[in-house]
């Protein structure tokens, strides 16, 4: 039931912008809770790596006096990875195209993260 709700939120998020290629909800321990990922990606690795990055982002923001972490953004040749907390126990991870308009994606991801935190 909860998994269906999370998947539905991810589906809406992926549909909200053609720039979003994939998304997933991960526990802060790195376990996949719901995912809409391309077939080539390993869910266990996406989950663990995403949670690890967010954990490191939390610590970096704290150490460098940037306050509470809002998001971690990684840019590669093939696009973006955006991670943000979805409540205290989960991480929302999004893959976007290199040409993505980030402002719009940030808004959509923020809304989705709020919806996920309510479900959890």
């Amino acid at each position, binding site marked *: 039931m909860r998994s269906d709700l999370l998947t539905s939120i991810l589906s809406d998020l992926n549909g909200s912008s053609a720039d979003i290629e994939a998304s997933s909800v991960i526990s*802060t*321990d*790195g*376990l996949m809770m719901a995912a809409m990922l391309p077939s080539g990606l*390993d869910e*266990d*690795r996406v*989950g*663990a*790596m995403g*949670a*690890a990055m967010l*954990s*490191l982002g*939390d*610590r970096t923001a*704290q150490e460098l006096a940037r306050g509470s972490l809002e998001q971690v953004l990684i840019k590669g040749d093939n696009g973006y990875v955006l991670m943000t907390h979805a409540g205290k126990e989960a991480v929302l991870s999004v893959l976007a195209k290199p040409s993505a308009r980030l402002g719009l994606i940030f808004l959509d991801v923020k809304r989705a993260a709020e919806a996920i935190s309510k479900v959890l």
Partner: protein
Amino acid sequence: MDNVDFDELMDHAKRFSGLTPERESLLVASGDTVRPRLQEVTDNFYAMLLSIPKTAVHLEGRVESLKATHLQWLTSLFTGPYDVEYTAAMYAVGDAHVRVKLPVEFMAGGMCLIQNELARIAGEVSGGDVDKTVSLVSAINSVLGFSLMVMQESYQSSSLAEELDRFLAITGMSRVLFNNLADAYQI
């Protein structure tokens, strides 16, 4: 330490160090003649450690209590049994060395000093009998090698555990997350 299979570790270390049942018997059989000389080994051992600047700093104010423990261990080399309990005790010694931040080379260096001392005594108690001396020195080398292997195994595990604790503390990652990350990559 809870996850250590001491039976397996003991068998492996005995095979690797050549600590055969025959050598174990020889060590126990030579105990009556060697044991009275062990205080001398301990005294010489600590005198040598105190003469080395890098080892001396780790001994300040503790020599007498360390000597007592050392003599007890040396005695156990010539009484046996060289069993799982002995293996677990040696494993705990390796852990203790990490806790007091003793450099890794201290164990091998220390064993070398003890080996030299015991080899000299083996020659003396064997009354000039070369075959007897060689057999006893081989048995001594085996039991010291066995002990060293077990200590180094725990030293390595404890060092890695300490490094991991430090890494987790720095990154803020939980142990569960680290384990899930390792599982995901089958490490």
